[in-house]
């Protein structure tokens, strides 16, 4: 880059190592990260009632939000903003783009406060380097809610530095100049200087302290909240120029696929590579060592085939003669395991919450209702399967791929190769879907291990679709057992929820058997129901495969069970499902998360993010109104409603379903209401709701990973069915409740998924009288 920049030259090298090298400029003073400390006082009794439930997690005051994540948040403009002499503003996005629009959103926030001309903004993707950029683990629907404020501060600080540079040049007090759309202006004299002309001088000025930052009045926002800017990658995507993890190309690159054990925990007993090596293009066959359980993010191990192109590698793998030991999970069978879960769910489990007396109140209830809900394993099936390219030059490893957690990948690779982390560079390309799969960086480690085995030559490691479905990290399998006692008016007075599922903790801890507090904090504990007697239990369950995060995680089974069960209670009580749901939630009120046994609260402050029954009621009313709830429908059609709170966002969905005489199902319309606080980019919030709706329908209708003889029975999109256009709702209406930029933001990427399956099944019940309790629906409606 020829110009001078606010940080340093060289920002053109997108995603290259050290592209945004640290400048010889004063570092931002280490402003306090305990930004919430001062806000506790104003909340009075609520604070006293809440206490500090997180105290047991470690010494010292508990941190929340970005501060609770490794490396927290960085808001130094010298790290995130570079301005060339040509006026082009380069803004670093340190979070990974997987379709949520984060590259557009993060840059938009900085550009807004900077008062930059969007047409002169470019986005530069950060490599994995959390010490420099702050937390990069793009997971948990956290990017916007954790980085809205730090990115605003970055933009505001850069704007004030440019203003100070102009004031100094004109020898004027700084408060006489102001920023106006890529220029600093002095109104009395009419003088103006563009950002490009001021960048070099501005870069030499101290970064303003946080207390001296003047953030824009949201009423003056030109980009934020408008939804008018196009995606920064939209045109590249539409023309095939966008570069994904799988697209990295290096001179002399080799291509690899790996044969992994069909059963998780199996190991190679014997392999014969002679036929594989005869395939033209196959260069080498070599083993990748497996690690002992727990699996964590380690490669599974296996036999790698390295070739001069992908096809040859795939052909070579087919020609391998392989003999695997079965390992401890060879008997894993989904039919038998479902029965195990059912048996476990019918006995008491580890108690997480016990309020009032469930047994006594249920014993005297006018009516008792009981139901069990089942959801099988699911696979992320990102359209781009896991893929990464690695090379090692002079002891330094460089990797390219679609990583949700590039620093995580860097640390894993460094450890596996025995290198210091500083000698590993992880470049983040676009992710062709993430959904949690690419938080697990095993594929990056595989690429690095293979490059090392090939003396550092560049190696692209690719998972085929079959690898993805056979050897993935799966969404857990779960059984939810619910019981309720109703009083004479049909109101629930007693509520028992036993949730049993292999825990994600089992991926990191061989002894983990029970759902963790944070898993139950995804919609089992933190349900704002007005019921006096509540017991929450989780019986033990042994994992037999690698359990991983899947978009919205445990909220999927928990919301399915809870929101189906409330509709079942409404039916038992002879009440309208929506009115009954509102009545069970009770009046608008603020609940302390700890008061319902939730000490996790998505690692957010219970003061800033309490459980707000009023907001949940609000989305229910909005979705119902949008769907014209209560209107008469043709025979065979029905409306179903469900509402769920997840990732500190409130969402309700009304699904309209049509079921014909043969049991064939269509979804003419879905109405979704979302309260995620204020929106940076409402169009992307809408897009996330639309996509989550389709994904939610897919898992309800047909998706499942089932095990037999220890391995999945699904290999590709013929057997692992995901929704196609023919199954998408004809209409999806998204209603975004108004928000306030002065209040905390909620998550958006995940919370759209959980309400869809229960709303659909409630609609099916309304249309047909048939209650679906086990997913997927498959052919359960067929006669």
């Amino acid at each position, binding site marked *: 880059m020829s110009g001078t920049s606010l940080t340093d030259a060289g920002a053109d090298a997108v995603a290259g190592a050290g592209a945004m090298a640290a400048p010889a400029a004063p570092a931002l003073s280490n402003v306090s990260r305990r930004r919430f400390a001062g806000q506790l006082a104003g909340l009075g009794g609520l604070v006293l009632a809440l206490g500090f439930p997180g105290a047991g997690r470690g010494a010292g005051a508990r941190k929340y939000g970005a501060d609770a994540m490794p490396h927290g948040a960085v808001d130094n403009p010298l790290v995130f903003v570079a301005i060339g002499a040509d006026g082009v503003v380069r803004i670093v996005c340190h979070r990974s783009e997987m379709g949520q629009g984060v590259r557009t959103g993060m840059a938009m926030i900085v550009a807004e406060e900077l008062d930059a001309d969007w047409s002169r903004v470019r986005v530069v993707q950060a490599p994995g380097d959390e010490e420099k950029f702050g937390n990069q683990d793009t997971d948990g629907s956290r990017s916007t809610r954790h980085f809205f404020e730090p990115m605003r501060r970055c933009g505001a600080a850069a704007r004030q530095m440019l203003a100070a540079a102009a004031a100094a040049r004109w020898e004027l007090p700084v408060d006489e100049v102001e920023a106006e759309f890529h220029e600093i202006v002095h109104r009395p004299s009419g003088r103006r200087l563009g950002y490009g002309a001021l960048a070099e001088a501005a870069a030499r000025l101290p970064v303003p302290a946080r207390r001296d930052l003047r953030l824009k009045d949201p009423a003056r926002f030109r980009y934020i909240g408008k939804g008018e800017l196009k995606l920064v990658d939209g045109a590249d995507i539409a023309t095939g120029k966008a570069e994904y993890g799988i697209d990295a190309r290096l001179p002399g690159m080799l291509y690899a696929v790996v044969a992994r054990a069909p059963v998780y925990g199996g190991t190679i007993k014997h392999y014969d590579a002679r036929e594989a090596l005869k395939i033209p293009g196959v260069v080498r066959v070599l083993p990748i060592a497996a690690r002992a359980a727990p699996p964590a993010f380690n490669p599974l191990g296996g036999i790698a085939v390295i070739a001069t192109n992908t096809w040859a590698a795939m052909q070579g793998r087919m020609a391998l003669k392989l003999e695997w030991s079965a390992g401890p999970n060879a008997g894993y069978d989904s039919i038998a395991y479902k029965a195990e879960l059912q048996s476990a769910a019918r006995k008491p489990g580890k108690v997480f919450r016990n309020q009032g007396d469930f047994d006594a109140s249920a014993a005297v209830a006018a009516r008792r209702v009981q139901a069990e809900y089942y959801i099988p394993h699911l696979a992320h099936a990102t359209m781009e399967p896991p893929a990464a390219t690695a090379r090692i030059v002079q002891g330094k490893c460089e990797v390219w791929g679609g990583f949700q957690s590039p620093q995580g990948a860097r640390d894993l690779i460094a450890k596996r190769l025995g290198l210091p982390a500083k000698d590993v560079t992880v470049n983040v390309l676009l992710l062709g879907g993430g959904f949690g799969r690419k938080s697990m960086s095993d594929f990056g480690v595989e690429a690095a291990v293979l490059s090392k085995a090939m003396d550092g030559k560049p190696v692209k490691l690719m998972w085929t679709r079959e690898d993805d479905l056979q050897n993935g990290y799966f969404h857990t399998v779960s059984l939810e057992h619910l019981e309720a006692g109703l009083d004479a008016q049909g109101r629930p007075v007693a509520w028992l929820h036993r949730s049993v599922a292999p825990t994600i903790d089992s991926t990191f801890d061989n002894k983990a058997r029970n759902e963790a507090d944070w898993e139950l904090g995804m919609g089992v504990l933190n349900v704002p129901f007005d019921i006096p007697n509540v017991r929450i239990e989780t019986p033990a369950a042994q994992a037999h495969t690698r359990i991983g995060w899947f978009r919205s995680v445990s909220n999927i089974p928990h919301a399915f069970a809870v929101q189906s069960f409330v509709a079942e209670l409404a039916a038992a009580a002879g009440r309208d499902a929506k009115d009954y749901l509102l009545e069970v939630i009770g009046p608008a009120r603020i609940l302390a998360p700890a008061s319902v046994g939730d000490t996790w609260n998505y690692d957010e402050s219970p003061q800033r993010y309490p459980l707000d029954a009023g907001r949940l009621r609000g989305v229910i009313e909005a979705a119902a109104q949008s769907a014209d709830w209560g209107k008469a429908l043709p025979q065979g059609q029905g409306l179903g409603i469900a509402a769920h709170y997840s990732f500190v966002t409130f969402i309700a969905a009304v699904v309209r379903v049509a079921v014909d005489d043969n049991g064939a199902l269509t979804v003419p319309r879905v109405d979704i209401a979302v309260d995620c606080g204020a929106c940076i980019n409402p169009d992307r919030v809408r897009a996330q709701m639309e*996509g989550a*709706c389709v994904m939610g329908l897919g898992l309800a209708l047909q998706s499942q990973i089932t095990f037999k003889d220890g391995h999945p029975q699904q290999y*590709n999109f013929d057997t692992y069915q995901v929704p196609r256009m023919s199954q998408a709702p004809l209409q999806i209406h998204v209603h975004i409740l108004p928000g306030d930029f002065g209040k905390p933001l909620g998550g958006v990427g995940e919370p759209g998924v959980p309400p869809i399956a229960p709303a659909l099944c409630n609609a099916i019940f309304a249309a047909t009288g048939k209650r679906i309790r086990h997913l997927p629906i498959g052919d359960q409606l067929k006669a």
Partner: protein
Amino acid sequence: MQLTINGTQHSVELPGDTPLLWALRDHLGLTGTKYGCGMALCGACTVHVDGKPVRACITPISVLEAKEITTIEAIGEDATGRALQAAWVELGVPQCGYCQAGQIMSATALLKEKPLPTDADIIDAMSGNICRCGTYNRIRAAIARVASAQAAKP
């Protein structure tokens, strides 16, 4: 053998059973065409062969000699392809975007065959293309927008 891709002749020294997808991606550097399943189940690899949509992942290069292959990188040279690309951007169709090259190739082929498709035509033509992000409603809207804009032209 010789392949004609986006109007240019390329020599590729590969076994004839090599699928076009890997010739494009690994040998010719045309990475806009994506791998998704390898079995013609998802449509991510859709290209045009003599104007018809074809799944590159199961099409061996041996059958492509003397055929005109068009990929996403050049579909913008066609007026319909270019209009669809613009509509994709305008309506914010992509989320992760990985499948969208294949979607645009299928959509272009549809509009060339049926300039004014019904909703049912669109669903029928596009249901071979999976979008895991679930952008189907915007894809449908973008195709309908281009179809009606082209119909309105004199």
